[in-house]
């Protein structure tokens, strides 16, 4: 089971628990609690009133807070998955192509050869470190906003700069990389992404033409009937 799935289940359990606690606390008439009643919590014994106050605290604040925290973990981590990207139909061509065993795009070759074990979209589209992770999520939020408000046109177009670090973090320094003399002489341009790795190594995804409604490949890539 994936970590995100564990957190998804945990979120469900906490939600149900929170609801049950709320119902329980709501049914208690605090004025009629026996002042002499003691409740043992194992490590300590508290009065009945204190117990139900603690229970109310848990039902109204602690469990909801924990549920939100766990749910957010699920949201933040869950979007790393390929399926999260694939939920927006404009991204489907990239995912379909990546999984196409006959495709020769860089994404498909990396996928087919198992060069990236999981979360393939995220791995190549998030820059290094925590800041890179955050930037990728911010970009994801921007995509979500665009998608849900319908403020996009097909074929979608990459905005900004694709940082070569996403390639270099795996390839740089490998024997095959350093065997090419020009990799060394254009190193500074690769580092600042002013020279794209894709120039020599080909397209990462289907072309914009292929992703345009009406193109012969559009139906296959989007899974829609032509």
């Amino acid at each position, binding site marked *: 089971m994936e970590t995100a799935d564990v957190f998804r289940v945990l979120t469900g359990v906490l939600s149900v628990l929170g609801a049950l606690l709320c119902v329980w606390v709501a049914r208690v008439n605090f004025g009629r609690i026996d002042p002499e009643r003691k409740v043992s919590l194992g490590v300590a014994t508290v009065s009945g009133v204190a117990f139900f106050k603690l229970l109310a605290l848990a039902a109204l604040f602690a469990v909801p807070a924990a549920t939100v925290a766990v749910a957010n973990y699920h949201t933040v981590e869950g979007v790393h998955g390929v399926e999260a990207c694939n939920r927006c139909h404009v991204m489907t061509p990239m995912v379909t192509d990546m999984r196409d065993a*006959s495709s*020769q795009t860089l994404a498909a*070759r990396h996928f087919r050869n198992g060069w990236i074990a999981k979360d393939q979209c995220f791995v190549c589209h998030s820059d290094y470190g925590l800041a890179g992770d955050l930037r990728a999520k*911010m*970009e994801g*939020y*921007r995509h979500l*906003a665009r998608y849900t408000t319908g403020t996009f046109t097909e074929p979608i177009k990459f*905005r*900004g*700069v694709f940082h070569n670090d996403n390639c270099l973090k795996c390839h740089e320094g490998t024997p095959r990389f350093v065997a090419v*003399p*020009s990799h*060394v*002489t*254009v190193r500074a*341009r690769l580092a600042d*992404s*002013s*020279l*794209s790795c*894709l*120039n*020599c*190594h*080909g*397209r990462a995804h289907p*072309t*914009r*033409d292929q992703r345009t409604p009406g193109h012969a490949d559009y139906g296959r890539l989007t899974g829609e009937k032509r």
Partner: protein
Amino acid sequence: MTDREQPVLPPQDAPANPYRREFLWVLGGVGAAVGAGLAGWGALELMVPPGTADQWHKSVCRFCGTGCTIRVGLRDGQIVDIRGHESGHNRGVICVKGSMLRELPRIEGRLTRPMIRKGGKLVEAGWDEALDLVAARFGEIRDAHGPDALAFYGSGQLFTEESYTANKLFKAGLRTNNVDGNPRLCMASAAAGYVSVYGKDEPPGSYEDIDHADVLLLFGANPYECHPPLWERIQRRRAADPRVYTICVDPRLSPTAKRCDLHLPVVPGTDLLLLNAMARVMVEDGLVNRAFVDRHVRFARDGHTVGFDEFAAFLADYTPPAVAGRLGIGADVIRHVAHRFARAGAAMSLWTMGANQRTQGTALNIMLNALHLLTGQIGRPGATPFSITGQPNACGGVRDTGALAHALPGGRQVTNEAHRREVEKLWGVPEGTISPRPGYHAVELFRALEDGRVKGALILCTNPAQSMPDCDRYAAAMDKAFTVVSEIVADSETAKTASVLLPAALWCEKQGVLGQGERRYQLVDKLIDPPGEARPDLWILTQLAERLGLGQLIKARTPQEVWDEWRHMSAHSVYNFEGMTYERLRALPGLQWPCPTEDHPGTVRRYVEGDDPFVSKGAGIEFYGQKDKRAVITLCPYVPSPEQPGEDYPLYLTTGRVLEQWHTGTMTGRIAELGGAAGPARFMVSPADAAARGVSSGDMVEFSSRFGSVRGRAVTDPDLRPGLVFAAFYDARLLVNRVVADHVDPVSKEPEFKLTAVQFRKIRD
């Protein structure tokens, strides 16, 4: 208080709707949340980093004949980024040279003012002074020695409009056919081969055929280094289908050969034996597609038609066992290759300078085409004979416009009277204007400069003092004559010999059309200004025409005017591309001719019904360039090269290119990333040959041949077979062409750069 009765008001604390307050709170909360979300989105939109460029323009790479479609990124009027164009035939792939195009306009040493040689030195001058001088001197030479004392030496790197105008100016204006250029050094044998076989030049197939081929025969080609996007395409094809089989024929274990499934390291100069032997195996083993041959092919010997039986009998001398020893490969390998090729679902051959730059270049080209015709491996996806080109516009600009000594536009010949009359009519000049004598081909032209037959020459966009074989001899010849050189830098080997040096605009500092290997024409728009007073070569030609009193002939002055004239003229030939307007070329990543109308999509496979508009209905495949519509296979006997290693010169020298440098390095040598990656040129020698001469890797050596000598460093390369030496010709500090033989193919007149007998010895540093 007054007596007036106060109106009765509802109690202030009684809300009209008991939930109004909560509703407003909720509404406010939702509004705040939505506002925060929108503000966050807006902020994120603003935070997207700007791309590397503000504007992107479609263009074409300046370097090799692959002719990659690119996107040029501009910021503040400067070129800052280059990307492969994903909609181009190259599907977004370019190479490191193309990637560094951004630096090309800014290279050091750009020539910015015209210069005139005075007292042995080049001194700066104004355009008027320089052009007036050129016109006056050309006029004097013509009047004193006749029009054939003048010559034009052009380039497969000029825009089509420039080559077309130069051709017209010299052939119809100055009335000399002394119009040739550097395509003679690289593509003449391919052109002669195609014309011999199909009656018309240019390949039948397209790069797209790579995507469908099952067997790829790379013959005398090194696309890994010289045409990287094509190599990448071959790699993608191999990855898509592991059954695809690649064969490389090359005396050298080149980077391409290393990566192919089979390498045939033939003895240099013997490869026609291989092609004839493959044909022999095909005949002997029943691999010939007789139905195809009977319908579409004719055989010829010495200009006369012969039958298939005579062809088969001719091949009797080329059985694999009979030629294997001379080829240096096994007879079984020859049979294997012939069978793989013939039995392939689709076989594609790709060749370049290894086949062209040879004294048997035309024969090699004919036989490469012949293998396809014999087996019917032509005219369907993946089955095609394809000559890869070396320069960006040798095909479209020079071969198609007929800017060669023997040619006229649209596949016409100088020696054909009907062709001359047609062209004279189309150019609006009197009958008899065009001389029936073919002009001097490149090597002969420089010999004519040497012995004074030619006294004045205009040289545009090329560096013959470095690129010609036996280059010292021809640089001296240029020194003797009145040469007008248009160049981008002042210190190229050719610029050093100039009588008048003119500063040229390059690439997207001007506008024009480039062709490439697969009959595709693409438009390069002007995006930036040239430095200083540099001008486009078209401007130089039109200004010169005006000063020579030929302004009425050269009426088209802008690139688009020239293009439209040439486009309409092409409609009178089977090179018809009248449908390619500038507007279409600007909108599309090029079009392939034939393309006769503005709604025609272009032709991917020539001679194929349904694709090529000139094929008759119901013909299927029709080689309409020949009168009887049959392709012609001429019997090509093997003739050994005049360059044979012997006692004095026991080694074979072969020359070529390296990945990061292009041609004579005038452009790529000045771009730090490319110069640094290639390093200085050196002689690559086998460890055995080095050891036999007491040479260690890195030692200074002197190479000599019957043509000259040159000094440089030798580096041992264990991949080289003993007896073979390799050097690239990009570096002016190691002018390898000083020792290269200038023997030419008797038909194409292309020199044999690939074969020179040499010797070397160690010298002191």
